[in-house]
């Protein structure tokens, strides 16, 4: 399995750049990955969603879909697309150190 260095830490990643072990994640890694995804700064609104996704994935074992984030974290679809443009669920999952979300909704 591939490894790479993010924010001074060696982590395991898959071929699409998603961390394969969520426990290797930390906030510095999130900030770095966000920059790579075109989000220069993570605001409290971003962190709220990232933290929700980490908690939810911890409970279910998989990254939440977009609809799950909007209904469970109480963030509107519009806001999600504004905070994480071009594919919010995938971007949040990557930044949060989770796998790619499965499921169609």
């Amino acid at each position, binding site marked *: 399995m591939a490894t790479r260095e993010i924010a001074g830490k060696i982590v395991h990643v898959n071929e699409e750049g998603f961390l394969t072990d969520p426990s290797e994640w930390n906030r510095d890694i999130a900030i770095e990955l966000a920059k790579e995804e075109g989000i220069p700064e993570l605001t409290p609104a971003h962190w709220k969603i990232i933290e929700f996704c980490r908690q939810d994935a911890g409970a279910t074992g998989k990254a939440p879909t*977009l*609809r799950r984030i909007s209904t469970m974290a109480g963030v*509107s*679809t*519009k806001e999600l*697309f504004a905070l994480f*443009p*071009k*594919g*919010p*669920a*995938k971007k949040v999952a990557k930044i949060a150190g989770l796998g790619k979300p499965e499921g*169609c*909704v």
Partner: protein
Amino acid sequence: MSAPNGNRHMAFICSKGTLDMAYPALVMGWAALGNGVDVTIFFTFWGLDLIRKSRVDHLELAPVANPSMKMSLMGIPSDNLGIPNLIGVLPGMTAVATKLMKEKMKQLEVPPVREYLQMLVDGGAKLYACKMTVDMMGLKKEDFVDGVIDIVTASDFIDMTEGAQIIFI
């Protein structure tokens, strides 16, 4: 080739107004938005039912002449046994089939069409109604759900989807 902003662009043409044929564009359109792809949806002919305020919550699925509708869908362990057309024509059978599909969708946490459309609009999809069909059916922009941007001609659609991948449903 892509949209003016250089982004990948997918355009769906929805021409059917049955409940089962409402979902392909919604599911794929939503997936496209989730992958950072621009989405345009053009509703024409019976597809206009998907965006009509008076119809969107009442889309139906008819069991008649639909060989894919099997008894097993109703929870009866009957393998390949279909719902006979002769039964399908009975009053209430369309309502039964429709209810069944809606329940299955709900179990999968798939949103109803109205809500799905709103999600797409909130995610940045652009919805348009076909002018010729709108004129033929005597409809107005007010007859459509919020989020339908405009009533446009086929020619307008061709213009606005230059370079897009077009999917006809």
